[in-house]
């Protein structure tokens, strides 16, 4: 596992370095071609449609770096029109959190489904993505309270100092679940043919969550940290994915007036 992760990181670094050269060369070449192509409209670049599958790189990396974290997330999206993709993720996380007076472990799985809308106008021959999107996320998980001490501002009896730990509330709180909505802001860049590297940030809004009476949900797999008195959360991922092209389609024709404007630019 360790070796695998190290390799993955090395690959990641080399791939990023690589990509910058090849991309700049490509753009230089394409720049000159684009003007002719746009005016003549004789050759049309066929857009690839298909299933893109990938993995979130940040989670295995965190699993490697942080002792208290283990996670994996698989990603997929399917292009349904020129700008719109159906997207989803399936993941599993286990995280131990140390707070001031207690320590707990959250463990569970999650599923996210939604749509991405590509806002980026690509140059000829490129299929990069800057997307806005939304997801609906659901998670089933359990929380285990590993240890705790009673919070008491007056320590006349020295109970914390003498190491008296709580016992009544210890144990696993299972059968918990949560439902939330996400707004996603992300991008994907094609490094090689069909291989994409991506990153995204997410703003989450907790819609519903079932929690144990004596221990609220403080961390939800897929949603991340739950803040007291707030329904919002944040998330991110870094992905590498592979596009399995299934068919090709044309870019939709623009209205003549729009075309005119673009040429003037």
């Amino acid at each position, binding site marked *: 596992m360790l070796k695998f992760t190290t390799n993955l990181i090395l690959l990641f670094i080399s791939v990023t370095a690589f990509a910058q050269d090849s991309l700049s060369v490509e753009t230089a070449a394409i720049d000159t071609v684009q003007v002719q192509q746009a005016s003549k409209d004789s050759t049309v670049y066929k857009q690839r449609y298909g299933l893109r599958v990938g993995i979130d790189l940040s989670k295995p990396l965190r699993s490697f770096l942080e002792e208290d974290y283990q996670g994996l997330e698989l990603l997929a999206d399917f292009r349904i029109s020129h700008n719109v993709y159906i997207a989803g993720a399936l993941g599993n996380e286990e995280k131990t959190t140390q*707070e*001031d*007076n*207690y320590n707990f472990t959250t463990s569970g799985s999650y599923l996210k489904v939604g749509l991405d809308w590509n*806002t*980026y106008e690509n140059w000829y021959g490129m299929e990069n993505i*800057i997307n806005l999107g939304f997801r609906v996320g659901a998670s089933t998980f359990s929380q285990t309270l590993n240890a*705790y*001490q*009673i*919070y*008491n*501002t*007056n*320590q*006349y*009896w020295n*109970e914390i100092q003498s190491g*008296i730990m*709580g016992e*009544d*509330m210890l144990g696993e709180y299972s059968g918990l679940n949560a439902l939330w909505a996400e707004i996603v*802001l992300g*991008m994907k860049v094609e490094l090689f043919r069909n291989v994409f590297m991506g*990153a995204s*940030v*997410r*703003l989450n809004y907790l819609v519903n969550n079932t929690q144990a009476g*004596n*221990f*609220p949900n*403080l961390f939800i797999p897929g949603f991340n*940290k739950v*803040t*007291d008195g707030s329904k919002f959360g*944040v*998330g*991110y991922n870094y992905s590498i994915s592979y596009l399995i092209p299934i068919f090709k389609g044309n870019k939709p024709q623009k209205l003549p007036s729009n075309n005119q404007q673009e040429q003037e630019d």
Partner: protein
Amino acid sequence: MKKVLALLFIFSASLALFSSCEKDDICPGDTLTTPVLKLGFYNISNQDRFKSVARLRVVGINEDGTQRDTLNTFPDRSSRTEIDIPLRTSESYSTFLFIKNSSDRIDTLDNGTIENVELGNIDTLRFNYTRQEEFISRGCGYAVRITELGYNLNPDFTDSIPNDQEWITSVFVQDPNLQHQDTVHVKIYH
């Protein structure tokens, strides 16, 4: 549009990164966590009136019967009408010595050791209660809620100079569940 989007992206990416490093989960001081027991000293012959206790000293009693340090919630050996008593959270009872007119006499024993003899009038109060652990918030964690508070006055006779004159006449539990931290929970008449 593109530039705005890119800026927004960088901004939110850094937000997501740095928000996780910030330790914002402290327990605010005004949160009601584990309560203290609030005692008020009242006049037995005029029960609505406070009556202060002169040179009051309060000392907790350990499990093995030894005395703890003097209670630190008020200035030792001062005149008080109201005091705060911290209860044990690991046991369902706490015992205290309430010493009125507290002062020491220093005795030198025959073998040369020095002993402090308490000259004040000592009454013992043992409080019994039910503990219920309760999750307060992320920053505070668990606190103990105290309910069904009862008391036991002078379980054994404790004055060092034998003296039947107990100074506490009676005790009344006004709020057995310690719900509010701004009112007296137990009234002591003397």
